[in-house]
């Protein structure tokens, strides 16, 4: 059953001030002596009621298989949970995705646990047999126009469909058509680049960072399909997927992020989440991003604008005409002092995302940084993995 996203008002916080009812242009909000409630059949999600609300009670959303009626809502003392039993049936779970995650998260996958303060993710709500429909709300090139790397920022809007995600999770895309053997194309997996409450807060949307794959005459099916999408096009989506590569929610957590290319996507999601809810968090953010040139670096412009006190951004470029090659590993060595300081804290979390080849080099850098400062990397790494503080996703 397709899940829907229902707009509700939290009765435990609402003070019945009538502001929302006054603000609603189509009378979708009503009340009795107990509660103010939103009529699911009338509400068009224009959001006029959201910002005037003095309490924030109006800003409540739940995934529902069957929407709550006005009559039910009028009797509540508290909001209900998301409706459960919402994942697809076992036989509909996409096996190919499970196999892809085995590769992406590495051989020790079974032992990996998520950070203790990460919320519980929703999984497999939609599958190949029962996909969700999303509409393209935007598709922008985010690499220089003269770069031969075409990386795009694509925003998908889910309209009235509930598609709850967390930073670090991925979604699957079903490219239309069939392969040369007449079978449907494999599901393409993309990491989400926006935080849990949407590319823009409280829009039911998410963003992806997708690189167009062209190798000689061979064009990647999924990436070219996605990169060619126009605003308004419909896309079939499965997921959400991923239950361990998730960010800690507590503001004291330090987060070290290492990525290359489109591996920047989950780092963008986590950074935006931190910026939205804990802009003055005591925990530190440290980001290492690698690309060939600034023109190839996704989100190069926005990254430059982030305040230094909020995040320590380290960009390395491997194809600069006037500079020696620098890879993320090199940069990590240069910042070894700061890295080691963070690694000493058991509140530090590491995320690595990018091409398969980078994983080994990054691990060696951590080992080198530690060895130079008398830290025992092998035991630290093992401890971090066991406590959900070291996460790798490579492809």
């Amino acid at each position, binding site marked *: 059953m397709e899940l829907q996203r229902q707009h509700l008002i939290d009765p*435990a*916080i609402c*003070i*019945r*001030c*009538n*502001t929302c009812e*006054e*603000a609603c242009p189509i009378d979708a909000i009503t009340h009795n*002596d*107990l509660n103010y409630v939103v009529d699911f059949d009338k509400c068009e999600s224009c*959001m*006029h*009621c*959201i*910002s*005037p609300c*003095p*309490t*924030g009670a109006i*800003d409540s959303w739940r995934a529902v298989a069957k929407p709550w009626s006005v009559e039910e809502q009028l009797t509540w*003392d508290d909001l209900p949970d998301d409706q459960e039993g919402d994942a697809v049936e076992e036989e509909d779970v996409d096996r190919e995705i499970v196999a892809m995650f085995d590769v992406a998260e590495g051989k020790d996958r079974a032992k990996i646990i998520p950070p203790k303060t990460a919320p519980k993710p929703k999984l497999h709500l939609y599958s190949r047999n029962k996909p969700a429909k999303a509409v393209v709300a935007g598709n922008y090139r985010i690499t220089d126009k003269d770069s031969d790397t075409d990386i795009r920022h694509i925003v998908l809007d889910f309209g009235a469909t509930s598609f709850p995600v967390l930073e670090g999770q991925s979604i699957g895309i079903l490219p239309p058509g069939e392969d040369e053997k007449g079978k449907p194309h494999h599901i393409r997996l993309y990491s989400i680049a926006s935080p849990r409450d949407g590319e823009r807060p409280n829009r039911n949307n998410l963003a992806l960072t997708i690189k167009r794959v062209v190798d000689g005459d061979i064009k990647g099916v999924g990436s070219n399909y996605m990169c060619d999408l126009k605003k308004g096009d419909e896309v079939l989506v499965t997921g959400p997927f991923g239950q361990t590569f998730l960010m800690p929610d507590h*503001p004291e957590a330090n987060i070290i992020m290492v990525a290359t290319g489109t591996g920047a996507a989950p780092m963008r999601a986590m950074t935006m989440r931190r910026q939205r*809810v*804990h802009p*003055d*968090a*005591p925990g530190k953010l440290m980001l290492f991003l690698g690309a060939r040139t600034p023109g190839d670096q996704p989100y190069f412009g926005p990254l430059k604008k982030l305040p230094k006190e909020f995040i320590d951004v380290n960009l390395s470029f491997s194809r600069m005409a006037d500079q020696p090659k620098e890879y993320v590993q090199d940069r990590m060595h240069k910042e070894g002092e700061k890295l080691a300081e963070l690694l000493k804290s058991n509140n530090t979390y590491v995320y690595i995302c990018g091409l398969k080849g980078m994983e080994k080099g990054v691990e060696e850098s951590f080992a080198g940084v530690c060895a130079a400062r008398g830290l025992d990397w092998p035991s630290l790494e093992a401890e971090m993995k066991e406590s959900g503080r070291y996460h790798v996703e490579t492809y």
Partner: protein
Amino acid sequence: MSIDYSQKIPNNVNLNDDRRLQRALENWQPNYLKWWDDLGPNGSTDYDVYLRTAVSVDPKGWAHFEHVKMPDYRWGIFLTPVEGERQINFGQHKGEAAWQEVPGEYRGELRRLIVTQGDTEPASVEQQRALGKTCPSLYDLRNLFQVNVEEGRHLWAMVYLLHAHFGRDGREEADEMLERHSGDPDKPRILQAFNEETPDWLSFFMFTFFTDRDGKYQLASLAESGFDPLARSCRFMLTEEAHHMFVGESGVGRVIKRACEIMRDNKTDDVRAYGGIELELLQKYLNFHFSVSVDLFGQELSTNAANFYNMGLKGRYQETKIDDNHSLHDDSYIVSEIKGDVIGTTEAPALTAINERLRDDYIADCQLGVNRWNKIIQKLGIDFELTIPHRAFHRGIGSFSSINATPDGKIISQAEWEARQDEWLPSNEDREYVLSLMAPVTEPGKMANWIAAPDRGINNQAPEFEYVRFN
């Protein structure tokens, strides 16, 4: 319609087009800022406060939050946009086009209504000016300051009406708004409830719940006015007023929650031993603030109120949603009155009972809030119920001011009242106890021991968000 922030006085009333009015307001503005400096929140000039500023008058205009110094807050003049051809919806002018200028024959009455409303706004800022020094958390301090700047903006709204529509008289009245001061023996504020100091945060929360709720009902009745600029000013003010209701309802709710947690966790009734405020004392504060607030609705039967209604100046609460003929000439209304040594009811002409009707709407609204508080108590498994006292209890205005009554509405002698009033109202010792708890807590995310943390941060901010920076 967006608000023009490029001008000295942000506004959505095309102030630029009226040079004379603009100059008058620009002359008033420095006096206002001086008043804010002298009698606004004590010693707060340099703080950066996380405030919500209305940046446009459409619904999305409320979403603007940032840290600002309060003297730099963009006070201005915002009216809800004109809706088509608005009509007068009640009284003898019902069906006529709403007035865009003051009708000559009602000039005095309208001015009095606006001055009385306007005078309460700076008054409450003055009453609350010392509270910043004893805030229970940065979250609460920010809420206090938000209430204060919005009361300041409400004064601006009323002063604009006086300047724009009442000529020289209006300008003089506007000046006097800054010359009367809360509790000043020579030049007090007009309504007595606004001359009492707000000594502690429990009083502040009770005040915002009960007394600001009177404000909400007054504004809502003025938002029905046939004088369109007044109606549209008050309509816009109601959204700000809702924030004040929220501060009161959630503030008292959190004190209740903390008391109940102490009782549950320590299996005790002695909440004071653990530094909390016991439910019995909360009941006394409730009794006090409710009774002084119901006084603000005036006499039960009032020819003034009847005239204001008949003239189309001040309507009933949600006038247009009431299904009747909106003239009230032949209607009656049930009013409480003293019958010998008991309190009974009588039927009175609906027109003269208009104050009482608004008071009834107000009391029903208070009851819904108290029900919510009782839910908190119930959820935490404590056997106690807060109640609203009888309307005859502890009154200073209206027919019940001549008698003494218990909270359940039994008339008692003066001697019995004097012997027992400490059972129902906070005694000096009670007030001293509450005052003794008022020590500032300014570490982000921390709460004073007598109050629970809020369920949700302002603008969904995290609990440890630094709502106020002291610099």
